[in-house]
């Protein structure tokens, strides 16, 4: 069964205190790994897609990396506006009974709070 595990469940940082969020996965065939940000009461907002081990992508204070078993979302010198839940999702093939297409399997998220 395809599984995505995010850790920690919650993380509190002081403004400027860098840290990393982890997303580990066990899937039958990884076709892509996605990071999303979700603010309370809103839908997830796309951040990054990673396709192969060793790939890295950056956006402002965020940097996502990928290995064969996990991905990290590094947050450098965070600000209070970075407070949100960060979701990781892997793209996998669906079952033949589901059309043999592709779907996302989500982790449960890491709730990040950055205090001023």
């Amino acid at each position, binding site marked *: 069964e395809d599984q995505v595990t995010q850790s920690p469940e919650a993380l509190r940082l002081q403004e400027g205190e860098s840290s990393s969020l982890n997303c580990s996965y066990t899937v039958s065939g990884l076709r892509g790994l996605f990071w*999303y940000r979700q603010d309370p009461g809103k*839908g997830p907002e796309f951040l990054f*897609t990673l396709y192969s081990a060793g790939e890295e992508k950056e956006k402002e204070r965020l940097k996502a990396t990928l290995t064969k078993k996990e991905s990290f979302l590094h947050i450098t010198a965070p600000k209070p506006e970075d407070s949100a839940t960060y979701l990781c999702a892997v793209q996998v093939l669906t079952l033949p009974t589901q059309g043999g*297409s592709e*779907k*996302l399997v989500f982790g449960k*998220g890491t709730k990040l709070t950055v205090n001023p």
Partner: protein
Amino acid sequence: DVKVTQSSRYLVKRTGEKVFLECVQDMDHENMFWYRQDPGLGLRLIYFSYDVKMKEKGDIPEGYSVSREKKERFSLILESASTNQTSMYLCASSLWGGRDEQFFGPGTRLTVL
């Protein structure tokens, strides 16, 4: 920018009612998805569609059905709402089933009393 809209932000229904949740996207995306999000369980896929009039069951389809009569519109139907269907419902769309990210709507918070 891609825009995915959902018909209601908040909805309160009674047990046994038939409930329709509507989702519309404006970027001519082929693929549309319905998820529910619950504390401690994360996002779970209910149904998805890769073309007009086509639908596939996701991981938790029981108690739900869908309709996609037009490319831009994907409806989730609760035939007889139950209290365990109280949840946040999120619609998403993407250009292809392959390497394109999914764009999400704002969500509908459904409460079934």
